[in-house]
């Protein structure tokens, strides 16, 4: 590094050489960027759920279908996604300890759980018992499912690229921050599923 010319008066300068070159959590701009995305997407989810109930409040019968969505796959998937928080937690913790081996291991496990979840998601779509174009109820359900699935796919792809990078390099410290934030975002994808699950599967029952 090129140190600046020493001024006669050293007190004029605030030296920052000693500072770390990356940091985790809310110290990192990456965390703020991720939180910005979370805020935007939470708003989208919240407004979609409000639209669902707005339409429901104007309807004589709900659901506008013979059967509500089958519980089996959606509930199974809720269990799968809650379990995925475990490898996610370990991946995040390993990243914050800069432990590359553990990061690699847990990111691969995270990838596997994403694949499992996406596979069951396909079965979920088949068991909704309504089409998106049948009526407004169907549209609202498919919109919620579609939005959440888009998040799953993009985050799964994100994680895949990051996992490959952690194996091939080129690596530097701030990639551990990326792993940590990627895991943080996955928490959001998981936790946002819980209200969406409740609305899709129980909003049509209760």
């Amino acid at each position, binding site marked *: 590094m090129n140190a600046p*010319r020493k001024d006669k008066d050293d007190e*004029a300068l605030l030296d*920052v050489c000693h*500072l770390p070159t990356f940091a985790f959590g809310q110290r990192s701009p990456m965390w*703020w960027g991720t939180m910005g995305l979370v805020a*935007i997407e939470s708003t989208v989810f919240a407004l*979609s759920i409000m639209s669902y109930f707005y339409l429901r409040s104007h309807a004589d019968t709900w659901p506008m279908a013979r059967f509500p969505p089958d519980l089996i796959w959606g509930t199974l998937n809720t269990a799968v996604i809650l379990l995925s928080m475990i490898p996610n937690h370990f991946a995040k913790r390993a990243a914050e300890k800069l432990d590359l081996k553990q990061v690699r291991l847990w990111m691969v496990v995270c990838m596997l759980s994403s694949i499992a979840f996406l596979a069951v998601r396909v079965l979920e779509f088949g068991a909704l018992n309504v089409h998106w174009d049948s009526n407004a109820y169907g549209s609202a359900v498919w*919109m919620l499912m579609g939005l959440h699935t888009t998040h799953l796919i993009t985050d799964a792809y994100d994680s895949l690229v990051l996992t490959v990078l952690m194996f091939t390099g080129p690596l530097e410290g701030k990639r551990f921050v990326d792993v940590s934030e990627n895991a943080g975002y996955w928490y959001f994808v998981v936790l946002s599923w819980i209200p969406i699950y409740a609305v899709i599967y129980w909003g049509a029952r209760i």
Partner: protein
Amino acid sequence: MSMAKSPAPPRLAPQDAAQLHQTWSDPPGLVGWFSAINHKTISMRFMVTTFVFFVMGGLLALAIRTQLAQPDGKTVGPDMYNQLFTMHGSTMMFLFAVPVMQAVATYLVPLMIGARSVAFPRMNAFAYWIFTLGGIMLFIAFLVGSGPDAGWFAYVPLSLLQFSPGKRVDIWAQMITFTEMAGLMEAIVLITTILKMRAPGMTLNRMPLFVWTILATSFMVLFSMPAVMLASTALITDRLVGTQFYNPLKGGDALLWQHLFWFFGHPEVYMIFIPPLGFISTIIATFSRRPVVGYPAMVLAVIATAFLAFGLWVHHMFATNLPELGKTFFTAASLMIAIPTAIQIFCWIATLWTGRLDLRTPLLFVLAFFVILVIGGLTGLMLASVSLDTQLHDSFFVVAHLHYVLMGGAVFPLFGAFYYWFPKFTGRMLGETLGKWNFWLFFIGFNLTFFPMHVLGLQGMPRRVYTYPSEMGWGSLNFLATIGAFMMALSVLLFIVNVVHSRRRGAVAGDDPWGAGTLEWSVASPPPPANFEMVPVVHARDPLWSAQKLPSHVSGLANDYREILVTSVADADLDHRLWLPASSIWPFLTALATTVLFIGSVFTPWAVVWAMVPVAIGATFWFWPKKDIVEQRTGSERSPLEVES
């Protein structure tokens, strides 16, 4: 007040300064042009692009005014007229008013807070390209006869397939997707920049008022723009794949559109109006030669406005069958927002009153703001009353009101801001004589155009009619309005002449032509690629108006790659150093791929699937680090764990 300069500030050694300059410069050549990510380069393009859209929107308005100049006008037919006002409104709201504020902010915020860049510079470039490509799409559609024609808020059921066949409304809906995506990304860029990249010592309590307004606006963007994206996505799926959100025959609801649209649309007015409050505070302080009175009150008023703006959306829907009690609540909220606005106006008046005024063009535009916004605010109070609103709804009175608020609240201060910061952008002053002509023609032309519309509205002239019979007696006031519109056009033309001329031949500005107090005036005009040769340390609200304390600058940041300083959110204490990415063409290429996806989806839903592939490829190359630069940087890496231990 600009006397308080301590001796000579510390400088880098010449070879280090040259290297710093090189490091932060964008690459040369055509590929380099598309790879640029420096926040000033992108912001200049962004400002020029939004201004081009402003001019286009203005030309559309001239066509409208020409048609309405006389009864039974024959300039354009009804179909063209529908496209004209829809394009005019959509262009001004989505391609000019909100994005221009973000464009100006991405230039000024880093300079005002002592940062070398915005956070996420590549995303900033991507957002610019997405925005520009979306705007180009809209105008190409218009030129080939497929301009949207259902009004700028595209109410259902008019905008549904049954009443609007063809691709026009789909183009409108995708334009929303482009512009709101760009707007949301810019909001994230700005929030992160403001909260994490302020120079050490610039606590929140010392942050310039303009930066506060941008922070508040960006948070509003995060929570309001998703509503219009969701609404327009549901609209386009209703049109293209048969969803039934807005179809009452299948359990849908037309008012759902209005709720979602105005949940965005009302805060949007404040997203347009709040950044200009920052321009005004800055300009008033400089031209009164004293800090703005009541800094904490000003900050709180901005934040209060941002919150209250979310409680107003139903006042656009007073003419619908909502419960009366609900409407009462929204009337109260609409009246309440006058309080923080009044606080700010009183603080400004106090500042002007106790200052020594310097009546140059920027201040003239700001003073005009007071007159025009107050009139617009008063008609707003009238429209906040349900009974009166029901009478005036959809009449020219509303057209007059919204132009007084938006032009008074945004366009006048924006012109003022442009005169004020042009010397920083280019190193030259804008001509004062042409500036005065620009101002007076615009001010008189504006009032001539829009004041008669109040009367026309009260007389019952509805908005969005392509002509009117002479028996209605609206001819002379309309003719007056058209004369005013051409005066405004002449004024904007003079502004363009002024800019083109002054850019090359204007008086040389120097670093600080106005004797201002904020940090952007401490660097050269135009600023060098890295903004600050040495990052400043801040000890006061108006650093250039206060005696310099020690330490005055930061040392120890790298010059041979793009290293920035990250500080803590509230107090801007030192936190860590961070490496920003180098210039890259991938944000541009990814934006192109995204454009293919968005436009393709208008014609086939499968485009969302197959066009994901090039988008994903582009985004991956964008992210993938380069080996040589990583190796160069890891040499000086310090992990947070070793620092803590």
